[in-house]
Structures are given as C-alpha cells and as structure tokens.
C-alpha cells in the first residue's frame, strides 16, 4: 500500500513538472482539497480550495503565470494513504520576469488510488520577497 501511494504521488509530480494538467486531474479524487498555507492577502494563489475543479483552476493559474525552470523533490516518504516530501522549485514569473526560487513542504492524503488532499507549506520570506517584487514591477 505504501508503494502504491508513492507511485501515485510520483506520477502526480511527473505530470505537474510537465504541466500535464489533464493527467494531474485524473489522479485526483472529485473532492480533492488543495490548501496552500499562504494567506490570499499575501499572494492571491494562496489559501484553501475545495474540489478537483477548483484545485485544477488554481494549478492552471500557476502553470500559466510561471515557467518551470526546475522542480525537484526530495526522496518521497510514504505510508498507506499518506506521503510527504519537500520540493525545490525555480519558477519564472512571465509577466514580471522575476524568479521565484524556494523550497516547499508537501503532505498528501490518498484514498482508493486517488489523491484527496495536498497541504503545501512555503518559506515565508521567499513568498513575501517575491510578492513584493512582483507587485512593484507589474
């Protein structure tokens, strides 16, 4: 079961890296919940969103606003129905030309072969620095 959980989450990361949002959606349950633990007042892409469609809308916004320069994850920790890792990302914000480099923490919940929840935690300094620069430039 831990292996199945790990395999699912690794497929999700592979699809996300390639911006294959159709594949990402196929691996999410209909009631998938995405919670980016950044207040929307700090960045509009933060906060919780409920349901696969809402989550995909949020992820689509990220993929449209940013080019993915690199996206690497640490070795995945997995147990039946749960997984966690850190991701090291380097995004380029298309409108401003600003780079966003950071490390984020992910905790996943899986049920019946589909992802049902992702909690995403950010480095507060990286987010506020980036948000400040982007607001200044656009």
């Amino acid at each position, binding site marked *: 079961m831990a292996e199945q959980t790990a395999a699912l989450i690794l497929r999700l990361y592979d699809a996300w890296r390639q911006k294959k949002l159709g594949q990402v959606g196929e691996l999410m349950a209909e009631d998938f919940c995405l919670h980016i*633990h950044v207040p929307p007042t700090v960045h509009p892409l933060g906060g919780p969103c409920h349901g696969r469609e809402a989550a995909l809308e949020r992820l689509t916004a990220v993929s449209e606003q940013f080019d993915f320069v690199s996206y690497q994850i640490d070795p995945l*920790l997995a147990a039946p129905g749960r997984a966690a890792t850190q991701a090291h990302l380097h995004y380029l914000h298309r409108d401003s030309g600003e780079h966003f480099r950071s*490390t984020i*923490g992910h905790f996943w919940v899986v049920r019946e072969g589909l992802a049902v929840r992702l909690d995403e935690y950010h480095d507060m*300094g990286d987010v506020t620095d980036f948000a400040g620069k982007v607001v200044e430039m656009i």
Partner: protein
Amino acid sequence: MADINHDLLHTIYKALQKRDTEVFGRYLADDARHHIHVPIEVHPIGGLRTGKVAIIERMNEIARSFTTLSFAIDDLLVGNGRAAARVRVASLHRISGEQYRGTVVHFWTFHDGLITGLDEYHDMGDVLGFTERAVERV
C-alpha cells in the same frame, strides 16, 4: 548509532515538547542545521541556525519566550534516514499573553543516527496573525 524509526522520532518529539535540550542534544550532529522558514524580520526566532550550539540556544530562546499549552503529532512518516511530521501546537507568548496556535511541519534528515537537518514550516496566516496580535499587546 540509533535506528531512524518511529520510536526514535517519538523520543525526539518528547524532548522537544519538554524543551529538554540535554536529551535533544544527544541526537544532534555537531554541524546540524535547523531552518525555521519564517524570516527573522517577522519573528526573531525564525531563520537558519547552523551547529548544535546555535540550535540548542534557539531552543532555550523559545523556552524563555513561550509556554507550551499543547503539543500533538498528527502525522509522522519515517524512512531511509528521513522523517516528516505535522505537529499541532499551542503556546502562550509570555510577554504579550497572546497564544500561538497552529500546525508546524517538520522535515528531518539523519546521518549515522544523528539529526543533520530540520526544516520547519508554519502556516503563514497563523504566524502573521499571531505576530500582529502580539505586537499590539506589547
């Protein structure tokens, strides 16, 4: 050297909860790094500390500033010299009388049975809400 397993992590968390620097220090590598992903401009306890002495000193700073009200591990994943955990905490900030309540996320790395890295993330809204309330009251 200790095996990296759930029992070891529970021992480490018990020491953290009790602010027992003697026990916690036994599991820290001399060159360990502890990164609380909160900028020091937001809270002086945040930022990166490197080395056993600096990490223990920060634990003492936290113990002087906060009284632990509750501490519960919600999720713990362990494997291949790594661990990840989500911990629900409530602490009383002694100077302001304000409470900090939130979920703290930890990513641990070990080498030869000793902690070499700890990345700690907080919900950004929880931290900003707490610091605003604490500043108002001091």
